[in-house]
């Protein structure tokens, strides 16, 4: 009998696990989930309300929240969606499909291998949450140590919910072989899910109960009145899932199976048709006889030289290469134009720009309230705070991509052998990133103004937008871009730079929040400014300090630029 560990399915499965082990994303997710488990355990509502942190109620509640709130549906798309696309993108597909492997084994191995990695990442939340039973805070209610509820609710609420989402992403990614479709679906998840919940309000309750992929409509099996009960009641509450919950979960497994069957039936290994009519092809049938190989008479000229064709007679025109400051500036604009065009082509922007628009829209108050300042100040301040966080993420990840793109695309030796100064190559990347971030600031500000206008909070105070963005957002953004460019130059590895930048940022924000906040180590002035201060000399001095730091970072990046001049 064949050893199940030596089947093609097992080979594909284990290879997917191996590939994911070498990716950074799973580790980032694990760290993110573990830190959230600690946060929800120690600083969640349980301590305030007297709920036991290991009660079934609290465990099931947190699993439900974890499954939805932390962006898990998007992460599921990232991990599972491009499993098959990757093989085609890397050109490994002919090597794999020339081996005796069945379509079913390949697809199932791909899906389950990546889903297994996803579940491993998610389980870090449950495991951390479970392990924290042994380290209670003072005033925290903790019941005797238990294991089964963690496993039960994690499996029932998280695993099955994301199984169906993973199957949908996998199906879309595999059949279209387009990662943009997967990321688009992932980006649309939240608006679509909220829209679906609104739609359900007009339908019989049973429709929502049965069809909800995340189980919010079955209240994760809770009795409807459970939320209003006392802490003592909730701490002793034993959660048993009812028939509706089982029906819902069974339906999700059926949907998963249907998706996989669909992928199995529709999957093709032939290359996606490109505009092949524009490609030149070597057709040996039509090849002229003159290129036939003739045996060398003396070791020289084994390919006969023929009379030059019309094309070969074209002489290259003489051109003038200029030097000096004007030429350097010209090269800088040329490089900037290409870098910005490449940045614009990044697929993540399909998600980020709509996200910035949505968040800016929600930054405007929904109703009128008594306030000392104008609604424009409130809206612009709120957008600025939100944008700085979003810009931080954008800058960290896209700067890494920009700085390391030439090396990853193997174009670096060609670019580096041109007479463009190091400053041109570095500044073009810095400027492109700055332009992109500025565009996002502009989009955010315009959306906020539009939302303010739409909600009738007029007149619109443009001065407030200009001051807040000009004095707070733009200098902070310049500092962040320069800082991340310098980090990437120093560390020479974008993943290490991501970790260091995100870690340092999170650490600093934590410090600022617990009271260690000073402009010397808070160049973004997070929580250190009021609108009324913006025209004071102190703030202007702080902003000059921020810009000086940005310049110092750029200088450092220039020194550590690897290309020797």
């Amino acid at each position: 009998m064949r050893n199940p560990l030596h089947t093609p399915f097992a080979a594909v499965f284990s290879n997917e696990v191996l590939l994911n082990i070498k990716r950074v994303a799973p580790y980032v997710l694990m760290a993110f989930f573990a830190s959230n488990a600690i946060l929800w355990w120690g600083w969640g509502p349980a301590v305030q309300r007297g709920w036991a942190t290991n009660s079934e109620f609290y465990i099931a509640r947190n699993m439900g929240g974890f499954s939805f709130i932390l962006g898990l549906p998007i992460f599921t798309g990232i991990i599972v969606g491009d499993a098959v696309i990757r093989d085609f993108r890397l050109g490994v597909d002919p090597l794999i499909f020339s081996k005796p492997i069945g379509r079913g084994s390949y697809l199932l191995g791909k899906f389950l291998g990546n889903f297994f990695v996803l579940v491993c990442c998610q389980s870090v939340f449950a495991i951390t949450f479970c392990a924290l039973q042994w380290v209670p805070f003072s005033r925290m209610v903790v019941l005797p140590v238990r294991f089964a509820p963690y496993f039960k609710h994690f499996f029932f609420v998280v695993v099955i919910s994301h199984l169906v989402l993973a199957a949908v992403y996998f199906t879309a990614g595999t059949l279209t072989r387009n990662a943009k479709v997967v990321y688009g679906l992932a980006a649309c998840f939240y608006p679509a899910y909220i829209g679906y919940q609104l739609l359900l309000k007009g339908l019989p309750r049973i429709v929502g109960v049965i069809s909800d992929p995340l189980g919010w409509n079955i209240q994760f099996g809770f009795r409807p009145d459970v939320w209003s009960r006392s802490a003592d009641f909730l701490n002793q509450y034993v959660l048993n899932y009812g028939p509706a919950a089982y029906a819902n979960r069974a339906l999700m497994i059926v949907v998963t199976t249907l998706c996989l069957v669909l992928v199995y039936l529709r999957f093709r290994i032939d290359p996606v048709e490109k505009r092949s009519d524009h490609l030149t092809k070597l057709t040996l049938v039509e090849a002229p006889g003159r290129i036939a190989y003739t045996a060398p008479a003396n070791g020289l000229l084994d390919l006969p030289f023929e009379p030059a064709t019309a094309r070969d007679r074209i002489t290259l025109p003489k051109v003038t290469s200029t030097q000096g400051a004007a030429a350097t500036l010209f090269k800088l604009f040329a490089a900037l134009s290409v870098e910005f065009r490449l940045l614009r082509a990044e697929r993540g922007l399909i998600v980020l720009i709509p996200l910035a628009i949505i968040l800016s829209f929600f930054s405007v108050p929904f109703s009128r309230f008594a306030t000392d300042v104008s609604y424009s100040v409130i809206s612009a301040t709120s957008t600025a705070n939100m944008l700085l966080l979003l810009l931080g993420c954008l800058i960290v990840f896209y700067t890494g991509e920009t700085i390391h793109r030439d090396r990853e695309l193997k174009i670096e030796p060609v670019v580096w052998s041109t007479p463009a100064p190091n400053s041109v190559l570095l500044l073009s990347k810095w400027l492109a990133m700055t332009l992109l971030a500025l565009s996002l600031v502009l989009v955010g500000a315009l959306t906020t103004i539009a939302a303010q206008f739409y909600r009738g909070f007029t007149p619109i105070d443009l001065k407030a937008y200009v001051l807040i963005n000009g004095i707070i957002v733009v200098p902070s953004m310049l500092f962040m871009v320069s800082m991340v460019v310098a980090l990437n130059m120093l560390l020479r590895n974008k993943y290490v730079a991501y970790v260091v930048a995100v870690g340092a940022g999170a650490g600093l924000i934590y410090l600022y929040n617990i009271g260690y906040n000073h402009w010397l180590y808070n160049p973004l002035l997070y929580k250190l400014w009021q609108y009324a201060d913006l025209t004071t000399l102190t703030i202007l001095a702080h902003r000059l300090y921020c810009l000086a730091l940005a310049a110092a970072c750029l200088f450092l990046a220039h020194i550590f630029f690897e290309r020797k001049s």
Partner: protein
Amino acid sequence: MLVIKDLVKTYASGVQALKGVSLDLSPGVFGLLGPNGSGKTTLMKIVATLLEPDSGTIEMNGADLIARKDQTRRILGYLPQDFGLYPTLTAWQMLDYFAKLKGVTNRKERHTLVDALLERVNLSAERSQRLGEFSGGMRQRLGIAQALIGEPELIIVDEPTSGLDPEERNRFHNLISETGNENTVVILSTHIVSDVSNLCSRMAIIRQGKILSSCTPWQGIDELKESVWEGTVQREQLAVFKSQFNVISSRTFDGQVRVRVISKGQRPSEEFAQTPPVLEDYYFDLVNRG
């Protein structure tokens, strides 16, 4: 005149890639032949200012190429062995970008140049096609085109014909032979011996970071005059021949083996007849002995 003197390069891993390489290159096409891992690419990268040698000098017409990298890049056209392109740009945009980086600021001149280059490498029809959709051969042709921007005095082409079909390879030979004129030094690094025999007026063979020979292809072939033998032997005899002679090639047909050996002044056996030497014989003879 390009003069490379005592070039030494040891990587951080401890691998000594170049062990005192010295070469004199006059204008024309110079072939650098060597097996994989012999140090060809390291040498090319150092000349192209992308790698710093541990010691040694490179001078062109008296100017130090290592110390004055910016000057070197102005006269340089470089086609690396393994290179990429921005997949979202078109062929025309990519060449235009490289022309700008080379300092061709005049818009009209630049556009004429880019059009001519695309025509020359047979990519005019694909000028507006994204590079992400290009085949390996098309990318290689575009790589060759960018190396010719701005009339470079020093052209370095590292394995340029890999991935080209015979017709394009022939066209590349024509292009390079025309480019290597009285003012331009072209260094063609390859392991395809016929590329060197087709194009180069001078050549060097490198192995394990050392130059084994530097001569003209004719001189190399001449060294083996009346020393190359071909014959058919039984398969069992092959081991004996290999132990006694420098076997250049052995190919099996119908259970018998066609063997090509180098033997100076001595006929290997009755079955062998003398045959004119080719450049490959010289290359294999040196590399096998080295």
